[in-house]
């Protein structure tokens, strides 16, 4: 078997935050012992809510912030803390907001040419080819970002990321800011580029439907940890972790309009500075038991590649998720649970 295009092992990141008193600092574990591998030409979808550490993870992989611990391997080779030019070229990133990630004073041609010029690889023909590859005309290179819509700007950002022939693209919410009709164009473009160029993607998103569409494997993050991972049919079709189950049941769908089939989680994401001991999800979990407070659940295999970090993991087909919800849940939408608090 060929080495994975990208592999991370035990990757962690701690930030040090000043205490409210102003004296001393506390550690905030944004990413906690994350491991995964992406084979060449495949996509790993990374889902999770805001603050779960998914963007921090992406930024560490691309080298924007140094990890506190763990290893990153590119094509089987461990990437050193001080990356070589080839290592930096190998992993590129596309950001969420195409309005903020392009310099408004540069022409599109210069935006795409910049990484080539820095690496001494510039030729006008190469830039034109890159623009054509993402569905823009070479003439568009003479214009500036302001003259482009969000979807076209995201095409430019993709062309720039492709300029140095990377093996791995980190796509951090790359289609989230776009309207649905445009989002579909960019998703189709990304899939075509993957087919043509054999790229590996780490597709970071909070949108489960898009993740399901574009990914081969899916990992779900909660408070810095991967709580479930595996082939997308398993993770999104029959999730085993209560968090994935709640997340999936909460996605509004045009096709499944029965709101009572939702698992509504109590409470908010805990403050990452006060992470619960042992299982980080137990405070909001409908399956929580005393054991969850004492014993950290390991990411254990459920079935082949499908793994979940829960003592009570139980793969349940998506259609039957509602049967898992606690029985005292209000059935009528008018009588919300807040009434009797």
């Amino acid at each position, binding site marked *: 078997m060929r080495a994975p295009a990208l592999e991370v092992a035990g990757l962690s990141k701690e930030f040090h935050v000043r205490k409210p008193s102003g004296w001393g600092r506390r550690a905030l574990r944004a990413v906690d012992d994350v491991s995964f591998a992406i084979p060449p030409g495949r996509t790993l979808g990374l889902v999770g*809510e*805001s603050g779960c550490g998914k963007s921090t993870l992406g930024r560490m992989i691309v080298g924007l912030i140094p990890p506190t611990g763990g290893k990153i391997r590119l094509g089987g080779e461990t990437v050193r803390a001080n990356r070589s030019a080839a290592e930096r070229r190998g992993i590129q990133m596309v950001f969420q907001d195409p309005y903020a990630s392009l310099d408004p004073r540069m022409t599109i041609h210069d935006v795409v040419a910049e990484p080539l010029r820095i690496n001494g690889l510039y030729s006008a023909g190469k830039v034109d080819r890159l623009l054509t590859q993402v*569905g823009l005309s070479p003439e568009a290179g003479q214009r500036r970002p302001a003259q482009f*819509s*969000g*979807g*076209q700007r995201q095409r430019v950002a993709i062309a720039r990321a492709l300029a140095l022939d990377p093996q791995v693209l980190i796509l951090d919410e790359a289609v989230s800011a776009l*309207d*649905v*009709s*445009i*989002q*579909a*164009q960019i*998703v*189709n473009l990304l*899939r075509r580029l993957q087919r043509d160029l054999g790229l590996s993607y780490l597709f970071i998103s*909070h949108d*489960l*439907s*898009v993740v*399901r*569409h574009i990914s081969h494997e899916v990992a779900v993050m909660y408070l810095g940890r991967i709580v479930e991972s595996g082939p997308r049919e398993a993770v*999104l079709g029959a999730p085993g972790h209560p968090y994935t189950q*709640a*997340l*999936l049941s*909460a*996605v*509004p*769908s*045009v*096709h*499944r*309009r029965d*709101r009572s089939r*939702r698992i*509504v*989680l109590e409470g*908010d*994401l805990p403050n990452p500075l006060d992470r619960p001991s042992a299982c980080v999800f137990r405070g909001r979990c409908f399956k929580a038991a005393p054991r969850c407070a004492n014993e950290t659940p390991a990411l254990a295999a459920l079935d082949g590649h499908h793994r979940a970090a829960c003592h009570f993991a139980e793969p349940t087909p*998506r259609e039957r998720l509602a049967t898992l919800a606690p029985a005292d849940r209000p059935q009528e*939408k*008018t*009588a*919300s*649970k*807040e*009434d009797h*608090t």
Partner: protein
Amino acid sequence: MSEALLSVRDLVVEFDGPRGPVRVVDGVSFDVGAGEVLGIVGESGSGKSVSLLAVMGLLPAGARIAGGEIRFDGQRIDNAPEATLRALRGGAVSMIFQDPMTSLNPVLRIGTQIGEAIRLHAPRTPKPEVRERVEALLASVGVPDPASRARQFPHEFSGGMRQRAMIAMAIANGPRLLIADEPTTALDVTIQAQVMDVLEGVCARNHASMILVTHDLGLVAETADRIAVMYSGRVAETGPTDALFARPSHPYTRGLLDSLPTLDADHDELRSIPGQPPDMAARPPGCAFHPRCALGQGRPACSRERPDLRTVGTGHAAACHYAEEAAGDAPPREAAQ
């Protein structure tokens, strides 16, 4: 339907542009009945938010209502004096915005801000009574421990809690119509589920109507009784939620539904709508959607005549010359580049 609570007819809103006025809303009509939830869906720049700002009398400088009329409970409000509108806003009609962090004042306590909403409409309310009502309101939107939470500042609230505080403020004076503009867009799905439950519960308990503006088709599908789909400043299609999703009769609605990936099916390629939404200052002649439309290709009517909303079913209307064809099996569309 009996008398609608809110009735908007042929609304036109113009903004000043560098080359003369730009029609951002171009002849929009819709009704909201008592106790009804109307969903307004559209992509950015379709004019959905501007239409509702016009209803609230909150259009920014440089924008004006250039035609049509807006009636609330039978009364014209589009040309009403500022004092009338001020009494209406936050009273009988109130609005919830997308980003609670920018609509809350960061240096005032949550309780003070909700109390302000109460005292604005009933200035002589004694302080202890205001405090009591604030706590009851916070409790009713599911904020735990309302007495101490009322003394906190917005930055001490999480996103979901802030949006609950905004809802509490919006319902302080028992509104009959709530306008929620992307109320959950900034929130995570699990929190979105909680907030939507609160919003619906609040409307049901107060017998209030709601206009839910969003770009999320799944969310309106779950929540709204009726839906209006907007494109380029006009209503492209409107109808009861079930009918609209079962038989989308405008090629744009169909395209939107087709371009959504779902959790249920595998698609090799998403059927995207080709091209970009038009520039408001240079709308295509005829039907504004025709350059991107699969049905319109080359048909003269589409580029010549602007289609008006036509009835295609009970309470269901679409602004397309070929609505019947759109509702049937759409011809295979070339996959977007």
